[in-house]
């Protein structure tokens, strides 16, 4: 009986259940993706672009992109802004998660806080860009008004001509938009951890900090991986805010790779082939970093599982040999 249940006969359901995804994927994602990918090897450009040919030197577009100064600048910006955004984001999200799922220290009103912290994620990027632009406006704007009237500065500061300030503001906006989202994802992951473990820990006298680092985080590994990967992908593909806030300025300070690609493809000369090549390059980069993340996170899982499998096998052998003795005790 048991062999029938463990049998391969159920594996066909794996295929069956995947069919909707595959069909939708083939129609809606695969065609556009391949279309774009092939463009990277052609000379396709211009608004009317039906007549294009494959290049003699297939990788010419890729070489041009790598040589392109603005692309390099955008890459540096993208990574820099992402790091400046992500580190506070994950730290605060983890902190809030710890507080709001803590069994030892109840924070009242956490339902309210959870709702409120997610709210920045609801507003469209366009609106957020306008609002923040108004906030930091020069020579008159709320932030400048505060700076001047409180005496911190004698005159208004032109944030938008300062490259580092602009980058930091963009990083802050990204952080502000997404920290609630990350927090919610982590909390829902924690809710999936069986409360028995927490009860046992409390009986053992673990405090909040210990509980968090020894129990919550290890059990959150899988969801954490999700957060890290989606943040990486989202970060390296950052488009909305850099584009809408300062259009990649000042002086390319907030130009991210996605904005660069968009400009190549849609404004001005419609250079689709280079844009496609740049997209492919970014994709490779993201895949590379993601693989690293997977590797970092996967190893420990494997080791655990492998250990457990070994242990189980040993137990089984021991039980088979002298199991009767154990019961006698």
């Amino acid at each position: 009986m048991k062999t029938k249940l463990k049998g391969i006969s159920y594996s066909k359901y794996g295929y069956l259940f995947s069919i909707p995804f595959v069909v939708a994927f083939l129609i809606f994602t695969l065609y556009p993706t391949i279309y774009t990918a092939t463009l990277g090897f052609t000379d396709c450009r211009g608004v009317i672009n039906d007549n294009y040919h494959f290049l003699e030197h297939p990788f010419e577009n890729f070489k041009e992109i790598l040589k392109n100064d603005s692309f390099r600048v955008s890459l540096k910006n993208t990574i820099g802004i992402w790091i400046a955004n992500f580190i506070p984001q994950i730290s605060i999200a983890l902190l809030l998660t710890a507080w709001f799922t803590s069994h030892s220290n109840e924070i009242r009103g956490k339902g309210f806080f959870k709702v409120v912290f997610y709210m920045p994620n609801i507003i469209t990027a366009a609106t957020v860009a306008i609002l923040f632009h108004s906030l930091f406006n020069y020579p008159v704007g709320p932030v400048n008004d505060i700076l001047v009237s409180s005496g911190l500065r004698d005159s208004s500061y032109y944030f938008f001509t300062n490259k580092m300030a602009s980058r930091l503001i963009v990083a802050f906006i990204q952080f502000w938009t997404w920290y609630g989202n990350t927090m919610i994802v982590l909390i829902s992951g924690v809710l999936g951890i069986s409360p028995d473990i927490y009860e046992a820990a409390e009986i053992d006298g673990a405090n909040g900090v210990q509980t968090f680092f020894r129990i919550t985080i290890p059990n959150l590994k899988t969801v954490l991986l999700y957060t890290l990967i989606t943040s990486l992908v989202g970060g390296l593909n950052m488009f909305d805010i850099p584009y809408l806030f300062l259009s990649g300025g000042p002086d390319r300070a907030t130009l991210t790779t996605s904005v660069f690609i968009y400009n190549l493809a849609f404004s001005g000369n419609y250079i689709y082939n280079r844009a496609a090549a740049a997209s492919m390059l970014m994709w490779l980069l993201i895949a590379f970093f993601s693989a690293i993340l997977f590797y970092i996170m996967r190893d420990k899982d494997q080791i655990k599982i492998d250990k457990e499998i070994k242990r189980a096998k040993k137990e089984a052998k021991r039980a088979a040999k002298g199991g009767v003795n154990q019961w006698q005790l």
Partner: protein
Amino acid sequence: MKKALSVISAIALLASSVAATGCSKKDEATTKDGKTIINLWTFTDEVPGMVKKFMSTHPDFAAKYEVKETIIPTTDGNYQPALDKALQAGGKDAPDFFCAEAAFVLKYTQGDMSSYAAPYKDLGIDVDKEIKDADIAQYSVDIGTNPSGDVVGLGYQATGGAFIYRRSVAKAAFGSDDPATVSAKIGGGSGSWDKFFEAAAELKKKGFGIVSGDGDIWHAVENSSDKGWLDGDKLYIDPKREEFLDLSKELKDNGYHNDTEDWQDAWFADMKGEGDKEVLGFFGPAWLINYTIAKNCGSWVDTGEKDADGNAIQELDTSIGTWGDWAVCEPPIGFFWGGTWLLANKDSKNKDAVGQIIDWITLDCTKDGLQYMWANGTLNGEGGTKDSVASGTVMAMSDGSLDFLGGQNMFDVFVPANQYANGKNLTQYDEKINQKWRGQVRQYTAGNKSREDAIKDFKQEVADELDIH
């Protein structure tokens, strides 16, 4: 169970939307009562409003045709991609006629998409004669002429620019607010900025600024250059445009302006005279006066009462703000700023009908044409906003006097201004290139980089993103 219900409802919704689309596919390009549908693509409700007026004044036409509008604003950058795709895809949803703004009109009249524009003469319009009769501003014709020499687009406004100044500031600084005097002071019609800066120094001594920010002189600088950004297919920086670096720096270093950025809070504050220092004036076309400065002059007060529909009633309190304290005079350098052109789709099946509408809007210089109504603000009854229009003939018989300008007739200045505007030094890439140029100028003016670096970085950016070297 809940999930199953939601799945079922989702499928039901899908089914109903499929049904909905299925039905519409069977539609011909006619409405239920047999009228032919004409598709208009635009980005504001300005032209649809005109079309409504056309329909109400041409009942025969309205009996046979119905105009369906697709409005996609340009602000999120979605108008052009959608328009381009619709033109290329063709079919019954494609536009029969469409609008293009000054920032990108060249792409459709002379550039990559110009093959889709129908020459006006194919629409049944006797273009050359009508342009002469209506005395259309030359720059508008230049912009709307395709490489084969046919007119494919015309604008309904004329957006030639003048210098719009505060009477009180002029009186305090120059002793007179008379347009001729002020114009002479700033070098009106001279084609050079020299006198302008002399006036700026004079104003500075009395504690005034001459303009609000460097953006105010940019349009004049841009449009007065001899050549555009492209020489053949190479990037070309016209010396007059390069001069903007120095002009902007001079304005900033000497404190001749309030260092504002156009369309930001502080720029509007200067229209009320509430900026750091009071500013002499702005450069702009007629629409700047009525749509921007008049609305932001600070003289509008909430009465606290509401009308029948609940709209807040505002009244004019001329004791505050700057209403009536303005006038216009000839600028040192002629320019144009903005405007909307109307184009027809070469593949349209309703060319004749479209031609009638376009003719009424852009070329009809009688009192029944749109031009006259637009100029005198009578499109929706009396007392509407006046604007300068493309037809010089209409302008000559219209009254552009505004209370806001202390009774001055603005057409006296704007009609000649339209002649100075240059429609020959533009490229289809201007929107993007200008954005980069002004960005670099701002960096140089702010003192963040040298003049050479600003130019070098500008060239780099244009090469990198537009592949123009």
